[in-house]
């Protein structure tokens, strides 16, 4: 059983993403790990390129660039944001919270709620849940949900399973109270028994047990998605897109098979951006909009899953006209 429910009168009214300008293909990895190994990796995992942040650049810089893009559209200003959330596994410091730094850098007023959420692959859907919860409180009308990850700073260059998989990215999303908005349905789960499957000690490198993560994903995630749709009386045919955390192509195919979705309904951004951790769902939404500029309201299911272990699903009507692209930082 999951934590399930419905949020009313809340809407996503703006979204933008940002990636570093430095684009890395698989050529160097092929030299390091072997041509045959990388060909197999590319075929199965599906990552051809990824964006890597320069040494001094942080996740906060990427989220900041996305937030500035969003501000240019007019959907928020320094005086009307009541909460700033920052979802990441790669904050600027152990302390303080990066959300406070971004509140200052973005010039947002001081009478604002600001804090970090320490989640990765499931981070975006949890961020939406947290934002929607805040929007039920008195005095909070707009939430600037920021986040992203620079996992490249946690991976060793000679780690054949992690280094070619991850890419760096940030995102900004504006959630607002919106009377009469189509309800957002949610389901969430957590299981710390699997904490060791994806883990980085303080100051250490990312260690990932691919088998355990994969087992968790194929055994838990499709069931939660199916449960969510069944609870809402909706079939895969009635959903326009299943927007998944971009774990890897093989995982996406397994989830597609287990949930009855055609792969055509599962958009992919990881081929050009890698697994971008907490940014992967907004990256995929903005990327999809960039390829289909006229796209409007669509019924979508989003699912984030991974480090924690933590997983969650949202079923909602999403207005793609609110996506404002991917900025090259």
């Amino acid at each position: 059983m999951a934590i399930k429910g419905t949020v009313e009168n809340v809407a996503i009214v703006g979204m933008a993403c940002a990636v570093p300008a430095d684009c890395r293909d698989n050529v160097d990895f092929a030299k390091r790990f072997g041509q045959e190994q990388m060909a197999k990796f590319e075929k199965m995992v599906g990552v051809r390129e990824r964006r890597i942040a320069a040494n001094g650049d942080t996740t906060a810089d990427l989220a900041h660039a996305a937030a500035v893009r969003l501000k240019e559209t007019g959907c928020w200003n320094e005086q009307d944001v009541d909460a700033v959330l920052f979802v990441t596994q790669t904050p600027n410091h152990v302390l303080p919270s990066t959300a406070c730094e971004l509140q200052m850098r973005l010039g947002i007023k001081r009478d604002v709620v600001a804090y970090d959420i320490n989640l990765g692959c499931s981070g975006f859907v949890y961020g939406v849940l947290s934002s929607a919860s805040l929007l039920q409180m008195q005095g909070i009308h707009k939430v600037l949900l920021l986040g992203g990850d620079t996992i490249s700073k946690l991976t060793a260059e000679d780690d054949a399973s992690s280094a070619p998989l991850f890419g760096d990215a940030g995102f900004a999303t504006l959630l607002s109270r919106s009377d009469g908005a189509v309800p957002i349905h949610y389901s969430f789960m957590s299981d710390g028994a699997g904490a060791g499957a994806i883990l980085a000690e303080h100051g250490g490198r990312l260690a990932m047990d691919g088998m355990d993560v994969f087992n968790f994903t194929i055994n838990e995630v499709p069931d939660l998605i199916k449960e969510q749709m069944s609870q809402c009386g909706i079939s895969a045919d009635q959903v326009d897109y299943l927007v998944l955390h971009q774990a890897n192509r093989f995982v996406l195919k397994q989830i597609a098979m287990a949930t009855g979705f055609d792969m055509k309904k599962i958009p992919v951004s990881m081929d050009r951006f890698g697994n971008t951790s907490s940014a992967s769902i907004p990256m995929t939404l903005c990327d999809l909009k960039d390829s289909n500029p006229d796209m409007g309201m669509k019924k979508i299911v989003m699912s984030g899953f991974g480090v924690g272990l933590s997983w969650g699903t949202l079923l909602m009507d999403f207005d793609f006209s609110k996506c404002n692209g991917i900025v090259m930082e």
Partner: protein
Amino acid sequence: MELNEKIDILADVFDCDAGEIKPEIRLDEIGWDSMTMLSVIAMVKTRFNKKIAGVQIREFKTVQDILNVME
């Protein structure tokens, strides 16, 4: 499921001819890496609705070890 059907499934997973797959063959002779392990985990889950733990699959030495869970 008959043995030859299982061999055909494994030939697909290992991307080789069915003739190369024999129960006594050592897995490291036919390309046993982490990506193939994931393919086997997925195949066993999809076709046989069974879960193979990471620690369990790392102990597999021969094709027979995989055949044993294809029940």
